[in-house]
């Protein structure tokens, strides 16, 4: 008898489960005003606290909940957001006038107090419940933030910093009262003044946001201004690229990013999908260890620049989704010298230079890289073979490789460096100033150091440009890198997504995105 009751219970549960499979099938009715936009991101995010991470994808999500004093247009130009206007009365002072009538998601008004609190939390040591923000360095030499009247805030700098404006979009304004109330829980329950408010979700599962109806409208320079058209946006975390693509093609998500070039043709063949690309900000380069033979000889470094056919690599390995660079700066960035031309593919010249340097028979070489970049390196290695350089490729876990690079133990590595401000400062200084943090080529040139240091504090745009022109000329000639390419950011959306453009800094801002 007892057994039979069990059978019935199991049977009933099975029927229920099968029935519920169909219950979930009814598509939710979507009214014009009530749609959800789903974005498939290529990684989980670190936190929802704007001051406690160093991660671009994390910032992408946070930026839909929070606004900054300023923001960037998709092409990278800095425009006002919470700040209405700004002045730079002297090189050590910046003043920002705050727009009035901005509300946080909990209904409270945004004041200069909140702005000051936000920046103090970032720049002051131990300001986050005893810990220091890992975003402190992004505020450079800003030492103090002062309130000047009801609607103006002043940044005081230790030394002039011409790229303050370019760096400011990376900071988002939090509510002082709210952070003081919830403390470190801001990492899981964010509350800002951006176009969407947080509803539910976690940094490992999904983030669900809903339109903030009292939104002040965002930057007037990026129309249309006003509350977001989408009722709801969801960020899903999909580290596997095949899954992102399948989810987009299957209609489960509306927007995906970080698509490798070789997958583009699959997506372009799908009539329900539109692929969009934009010039990226990651500079790719082969870095040669200039302290050791054979790369201690500038002729060898130049020879390698001539021996690698970068146009062919971009065309064939990247399916054309990249731009070959002439020298160390982004083609669309500030202060790039338009007179510099790429080295170009010239194996005869490469051989001649190698001969002059005493390497007529070539040499053996190991090129180090990480897994996702290896295809480019294999292509380059085969080209080097044509001029007698026998190159093998070694792929590494990045953390392991980096220590060896900094110790100067490797010969040549291929990697990239982010330059989202489009300003030479955060590319050339860490990569090529003597002993700086990302200087894997161990290049050290007092003349270049002096130029870079001068440009760091030079506020006259034209003078600064000239300094960088001079710096570029030196780097171009000394060739510590094989100047390679900037890849295009490849993103894709369903064909019914309107008003969405990928940004050059790879942020996905959904404020203005609509569904047809």
């Amino acid at each position: 008898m007892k057994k039979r009751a069990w059978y019935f219970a199991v049977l009933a549960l099975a029927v229920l489960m099968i029935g519920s499979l169909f219950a979930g099938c009814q598509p939710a009715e979507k009214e014009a005003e009530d749609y959800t936009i789903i974005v498939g991101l290529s990684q989980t995010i670190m936190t929802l606290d704007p001051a406690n991470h160093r991660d671009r994808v994390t910032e992408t999500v946070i930026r839909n909940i929070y606004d900054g004093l300023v923001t960037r247009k998709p092409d990278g130009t800095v425009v006002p957001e919470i700040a209405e206007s700004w002045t730079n009365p002297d090189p050590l002072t910046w003043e920002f006038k705050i727009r009035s009538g901005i509300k946080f998601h909990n209904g409270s008004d945004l004041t200069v107090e909140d702005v000051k609190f936000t920046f103090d939390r970032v720049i002051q040591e131990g300001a986050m419940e005893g810990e220091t923000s890992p975003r402190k360095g992004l505020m450079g030499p800003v030492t103090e933030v002062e309130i000047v009247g009801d609607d103006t805030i002043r940044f005081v700098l230790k030394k002039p910093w011409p790229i303050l404006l370019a760096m400011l979009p990376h900071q988002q304004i939090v509510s002082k009262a709210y952070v003081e109330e919830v403390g470190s829980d801001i990492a899981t329950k964010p509350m800002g003044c951006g176009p969407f408010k947080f509803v539910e979700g976690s940094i490992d599962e999904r983030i669900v946001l809903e339109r903030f109806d009292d939104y002040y409208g965002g930057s007037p320079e990026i129309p249309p201004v006003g509350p977001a058209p989408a009722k709801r946006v969801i960020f899903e975390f999909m580290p596997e690229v095949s899954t992102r693509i399948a989810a987009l093609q299957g209609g489960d998500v509306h927007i995906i990013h970080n698509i490798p070039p070789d997958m583009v043709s699959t997506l372009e063949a799908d009539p329900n999908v539109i692929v969009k690309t934009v010039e990226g900000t990651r500079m790719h380069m082969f870095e040669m260890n200039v302290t050791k033979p054979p790369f201690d000889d500038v002729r060898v470094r130049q020879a390698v620049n001539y021996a690698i056919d970068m146009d062919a690599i971009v065309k064939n390995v990247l399916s054309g989704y990249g731009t070959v660079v002439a020298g160390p700066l982004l083609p669309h960035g500030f202060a790039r010298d338009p007179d510099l031309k790429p080295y170009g593919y010239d194996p005869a010249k490469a051989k001649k230079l190698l001969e002059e340097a005493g390497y007529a028979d070539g040499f053996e070489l190991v090129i180090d890289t990480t897994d996702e970049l290896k295809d480019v390196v294999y292509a380059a290695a085969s080209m080097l073979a044509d001029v007698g350089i026998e190159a093998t490729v070694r792929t590494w876990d990045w953390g392991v490789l980096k220590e060896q690079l900094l110790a100067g133990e490797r010969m040549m590595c291929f990697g990239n460096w982010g330059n989202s401000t489009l300003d030479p400062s955060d590319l050339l200084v860490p990569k090529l100033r003597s002993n700086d943090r990302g200087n894997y080529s161990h290049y050290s040139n007092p003349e270049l150091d002096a130029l870079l240091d001068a440009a760091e504090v030079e506020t006259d745009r034209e003078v600064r440009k000239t300094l960088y022109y001079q710096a570029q000329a030196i780097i171009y000639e000394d060739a510590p890198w094989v100047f390679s390419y900037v890849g295009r950011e490849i993103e894709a959306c369903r064909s019914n997504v309107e008003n969405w453009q990928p940004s050059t800094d790879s942020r996905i801002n959904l404020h203005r995105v609509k569904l047809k």
Partner: protein
Amino acid sequence: MQAAKIAERILIAIPVVIGIGIIIFLIMRLTPGDPVDIMMGQAGHVSAREIELLTEQWHLNEPLHIQLGYFLRDLARGDLGTSFTKGRPVWDLIKGALPATLELALGAAIFALLLAIPIGVISAVKQNSFIDRASMTVAFFGICMPVFYLGIILMLVFSVKMGVLPTYGRISYEVMLHKVTGFYMLDSIITGNWAALGSTLKHLILPSITLGFPMAAIVARVMRSSMLEVLRNDYVVMARAKGLREFSVIVKHAMRNAMIPTVTVIGLEIGMLLGGNMIVETVFSWPGLGRLVVNSIFVRDYPLVQGVVMVYAFTFVAANLVVDILYTYINPKISI
């Protein structure tokens, strides 16, 4: 008596888990790669002062034995530390991810067993028949097939082409499940949200098949061979001689005995399910422990890796304990 022995086994698991924690602690720190530097990424505007402060905050400036001391002290307080990259207590992160992993492992195990045991038994009874050959070929295929490939193929067929099953995640947002335990099937039943139960099951199908397929293959082969062994025994002949129905001979007399080696394999395989799900969780964007730990290894998030590996170790030990307890039910002659 039995209970005391089980309690003893559980107590033995504690030093095992702590030992594994210490080993992982050392391995992570001996692996090259600086967590602070990796967190700051390949980008500009990182000040030396900032690096110094973070290194101090995470005690990375202290000698190894002092760091180990901190780790053990926190462990004694039941604190697994705070994740470097996510800035939150490791236990909170694990608590969020563990139900997802267990639910998937359970789904995979159920799929595997429902498929494998009947196939194993039928193959043995009808040895060398077409069914036997066909199912063993499929089983061989299952053992060889890499799970990420199987997962993507299933996704392309059932999600992209046919559009009947979802491509990612645990549940559709639209069903509005109120989370109680974190086990979505349980939560949907508790809250009576049948749409959520449907959505959970639908999301569970492809990952469970992907994860469970290799296990099904192995279990089916083991079940088949141990059934073949048992069917040759005298007591089976005796049972048949008594005039029992064939079904009864096979299920009650033979299968029960053939289950003993099979259960051993199942126990090990369940441990493997937890390990193997790193790939399946990544492919199906499943918010479980596997996905959590993979990324934290690359970014050298020491506390998070330590915590997750200790949880893995614990579940592995627990799965084997459950298997040992099961033995005693299947064959009362065996004791723990």
